[in-house]
């Protein structure tokens, strides 16, 4: 570790992993509710467990991005963080706001929560992924502004590298686009049109800048390749991302009431969305193959390569499967969508956060890499999580194919609930894969627990 203030990242990483485990637990609950319909009913209804599952995902990924920024920005800028105190303070504000929100979800009915938090004054609740009470949303904006100020000042008063500038633009876009979460018109078409400006332009736009910047940083550090080479590829990748992804928003505009031409625009541009992911995969493997040094942290390199591969498979290939309008007409809003969502989020964003944690935490502890044993354990967690996520995706795809055929495609379409029962076997297999995923995640967390050597090191440094 070069700068003392990089240590702030540690808090964020711990918080992220804890919430990640929580997210998986709630995923298992809703997965079970798909097959045992009255599980935990009416104490934790499906919609509540689902919003905990998705909101925890968003919050812990944001924590991961913030942690990554606090780690890599000082090193890139060549100076201490502008205000380590503000960074620590904002962590606790964010964590407590998040925890209160989840407690709110779980302890009172959602409608009561809306009343208590004064949703009537500025109604923003009750939309997918944006279920947070309006005051929580305002809190998120405040945390994001403080974070941007802190990181921005560090970058602007220090050395400006491509990695940190791209990261900063991504984070800035993230904060600006979130403002559309406050726009909730009664006109359903307007509502949906701009809702996607938060959701799509986040995950298929600015988040990809953050992803690419973090990945580029880890590759620069672990391969020892010339920064110039990696940075120009970074530009090519994010240029392709935005060129395809901005108009690619159109693939969400097929059936929500906007003009039919979006079917053409959306199909054409989103058909190209796999390209940046493909370049990223080629680039990551090329970089590792041409590496100029052997970094002792093999696990981090494995995560980096895994990110490139699974992001391409999940976001690129599985996204493409149902992105063309004539196909999407049948697959829209089925388990096919769910299958793509799971692997895309895991491959692109979960894995990149796990990559930077894997790379940074040993260094924050004063070593280049963990002991061999702990690295082997971490690699086990990599394979357990990744393989089980591939299976989750395949089983959901199977479920989706059954659903599309019986409910949409056949000459004698059957009602939703009738079809759901016929998909049960896939739901059970998905749940089983989910349990294995949980084991993988726990193993990942355990592989970072302090060992006796760390304690010794800690006592020698403090002495």
């Amino acid at each position, binding site marked *: 570790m070069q700068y003392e203030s990089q240590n702030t990242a540690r808090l964020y990483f711990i918080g992220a992993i804890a919430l990640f485990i929580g997210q998986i637990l709630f995923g298992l609950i809703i997965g079970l509710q798909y097959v045992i319909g009255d599980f935990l009913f009416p104490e934790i209804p499906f919609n509540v467990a689902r919003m905990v599952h998705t909101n925890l995902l968003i919050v812990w990924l944001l924590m991961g991005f913030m942690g990554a920024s606090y780690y890599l920005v000082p090193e890139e800028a060549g100076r201490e963080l502008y205000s380590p105190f503000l960074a620590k303070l904002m962590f606790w504000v964010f964590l407590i706001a998040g925890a209160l929100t989840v407690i709110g979800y779980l302890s009172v009915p959602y409608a009561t929560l809306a009343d208590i938090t004064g949703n009537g004054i500025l109604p923003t609740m009750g939309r997918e992924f944006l279920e947070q009470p309006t005051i929580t949303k305002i809190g998120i904006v405040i945390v994001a502004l403080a974070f941007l100020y802190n990181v921005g000042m560090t970058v602007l008063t220090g050395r400006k590298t491509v990695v940190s500038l791209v990261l900063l633009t991504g984070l800035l876009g993230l904060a600006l686009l979130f403002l559309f979460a406050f726009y909730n018109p009664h006109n359903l078409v307007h509502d949906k049109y701009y809702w996607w400006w938060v959701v799509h332009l986040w995950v298929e736009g600015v988040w990809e800048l953050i992803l690419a910047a973090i990945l580029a940083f880890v590759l620069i550090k672990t391969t020892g390749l010339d920064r110039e080479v990696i940075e120009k590829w970074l530009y090519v990748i994010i240029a392709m991302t935005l060129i395809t992804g901005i108009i690619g928003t159109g693939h969400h505009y097929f059936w929500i009431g906007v*003009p039919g031409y979006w079917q053409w625009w959306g199909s054409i541009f989103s058909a190209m969305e796999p390209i940046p992911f493909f370049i990223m995969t080629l680039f990551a493997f090329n970089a590792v193959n041409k590496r100029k040094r052997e970094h002792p942290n093999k696990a981090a390199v494995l995560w980096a390569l895994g990110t490139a591969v699974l992001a391409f498979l999940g976001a690129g290939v599985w996204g493409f499967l149902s992105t063309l309008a004539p196909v999407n007409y049948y697959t829209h809003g089925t388990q096919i969508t769910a299958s793509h969502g799971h692997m895309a989020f895991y491959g692109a964003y979960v894995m990149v956060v796990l990559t930077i944690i894997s790379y940074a935490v040993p260094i924050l502890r004063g070593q280049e890499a963990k002991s061999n044993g702990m690295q082997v354990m971490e690699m086990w967690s990599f394979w357990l999580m990744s393989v089980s996520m591939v299976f989750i995706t395949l089983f959901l795809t199977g479920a989706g194919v059954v659903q599309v055929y019986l409910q949409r495609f056949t000459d004698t379409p059957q009602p939703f609930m009738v079809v759901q029962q016929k998909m049960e076997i896939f739901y059970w297999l998905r749940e089983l894969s989910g349990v294995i995923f949980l084991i993988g995640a726990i193993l990942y967390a355990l592989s970072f627990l302090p060992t006796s050597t760390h304690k010794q090191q800690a006592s020698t440094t403090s002495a």
Partner: protein
Amino acid sequence: MSDAIKSERKSLKKDLPEPLPGDLAMWFFIFAELFVFMIFFASYAYARSQNVALFDTYQKTLDRNIGAINTAFLITGSLFVVLSMACIHSGQVKKARGWLVLAEGMGVGFLSLKIIEFSDKLSHGVSLSTNTFYMFYLSLTFFHFLHVILGMVVLGIMIKAMSRIEEFGVHGIESGAAYWHMIDLVWIVLFPLVYVIH
């Protein structure tokens, strides 16, 4: 270009293929753009095959004369860019700049005629939602229209860069020229496809 580089290129020719003019990053971009237009053209062909009568009927409402003159504008513009590159390679920077300014003029001509054409269509109440033919006509020509504007911005940057060609480098100029040719190429496919073939 200095004699040293020229002889270096010549010696390279013997054992290696000639390197691409311009920057590889620009070629990625050009490739991506051509790919978009290609899918767009294929989509057009498919949509037309589903409803030939409609496409043929409304194709007749387009002004082919304007389209033909615009084709001439773009091809001439491309020629000027080629002449400009030739001048650069023989070290006549001033002349090179002159050709680029003329090419820019061709772009202005294209845009002006296109604006007349668009405003005529708009005043007749044609929009993206009128029918599938007009959807494709407007989408393709407007998308291309925006590219011409971008291409003219690129030409403008090239003209400015001429004054400090030494630091800017020939290959930056070549990249801009390649982009302009791409816009011309797309139009040469677009014009017959949308305006003429039936």
